[in-house]
């Protein structure tokens, strides 16, 4: 078996005295594709935030990409790619400015930005401020960023939401690419995957825990 991309044992994560996660144990193989589903409010977003090192572990043990999540979130954060529910980066900067900022921060080549924008269909909006984009376009900006970024572990929160058919098709392609490149993906979704060529592991959450895993 490939080395583990993430390993959680009885993780509890509390925020404002409310346990967002109430004891999650999970093991993800490198190169795997995991889809997290579950009812609204069951803790999918919280789990992804935890894996990204943005929500801190209150109890339990957690390792992501071989790094201890409890003591070294900074290291973890640097190595994961994140696509959230809401827009990303700075609302007041334009699409391109945001990507340039992010790419410079991670020392990614800037000349990958233009092709990425082209691929996600945002080339004609590259000078519009992020806050003026439509919901789906904001999503697409995040996808463009993921293209430029090439993370080891991808955490995607409801990536299909607000995307139109073409966008979803494009996302499926992207997923295929990532899988072939050996990247690990964890995504939350309410629908089953569209792409038929991929065989995801399904994890079902309820009440802040995993109730079913295949």
């Amino acid at each position, binding site marked *: 078996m490939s080395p583990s991309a993430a390993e959680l044992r009885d993780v509890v994560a509390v925020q404002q005295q409310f346990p967002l996660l109430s004891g999650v144990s999970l093991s993800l193989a490198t190169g795997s594709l995991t889809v997290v589903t579950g009812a609204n409010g069951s803790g999918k977003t919280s789990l992804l935030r935890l894996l990204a090192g943005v929500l801190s572990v209150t109890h339990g043990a957690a390792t992501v990409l071989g790094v201890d999540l409890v003591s070294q979130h900074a290291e973890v954060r640097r190595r994961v790619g*994140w696509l959230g529910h809401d827009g990303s980066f700075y609302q007041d900067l334009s699409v391109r400015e945001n990507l340039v900022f992010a790419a410079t921060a991670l020392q990614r080549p800037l000349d990958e930005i233009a092709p990425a924008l082209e691929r996600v269909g945002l080339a004609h909006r590259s000078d519009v401020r992020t806050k003026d984009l439509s919901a789906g376009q904001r999503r697409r900006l995040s996808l463009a960023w993921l293209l430029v970024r090439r993370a080891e572990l991808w955490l995607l929160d409801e990536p299909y939401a607000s995307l139109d058919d073409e966008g979803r098709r494009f996302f499926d392609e992207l997923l295929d690419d990532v899988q072939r490149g050996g990247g690990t993906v964890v995504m939350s979704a309410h629908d089953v995957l569209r792409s038929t060529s991929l065989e995801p592991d399904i994890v079902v959450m309820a009440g802040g825990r995993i109730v079913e895993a295949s």
Partner: protein
Amino acid sequence: MIRTAWLVTRKDLRIEMRSRVLLWQVVPFGALALLLCGLALGPADAGHSRAAPGLFYLVTLFVALLMINRSQAVEQTVGTAESVATLGLDPAGVFLGKTMALTLELWASATLLLAGTVVVLHTSLIGTVHAVPSVLVTLGAMACAGTLYGALSAGNEGPATLLPILALPAFAPLLVAGERSFSAALHGGALWEWWVIDLVALAGYVAIGVLLYGVLEE
């Protein structure tokens, strides 16, 4: 670190430029503050120039609080915090970058306000020019402290709530020292001693920030 700092500075200044808060907020506010003070002290000139340093720093304090607030607010919008966190920026660089941007903004507003005190409160031009280095250092120290406390208070309730109570006690000595050395520049007196306090504070805050900012970002 320097690279990150520079990146963050440019980003913050660009966002600030877009919203032009500096221009629309600082200038009218400074003008009205000067007006009110002119009123409160009556038409005598002597009083005006004596109160000028305190007034200058009071207005600067307002402006600084507003800017620190904004400087943190842009990081806290929904979605922004997570995506920026996963860039894994070097915390020391972020600290230096945000401080630098704040410092530049404060310097810009201080220039305007100093010009205002000369014109409106009749402080002596030469004295004011002498005060400039000390003002620059004091504002630099305020920016450092502000960035640190801004990060401390970021979180659930937004910086607006907690920031002042955290930052003000730290600002107080800086402001006192700044005010004293400005006064000294205007009316004679121990110019350097106070100045040195702010310089030491600046160095201390920079050191603490570079070392500990990473701890603050969870």
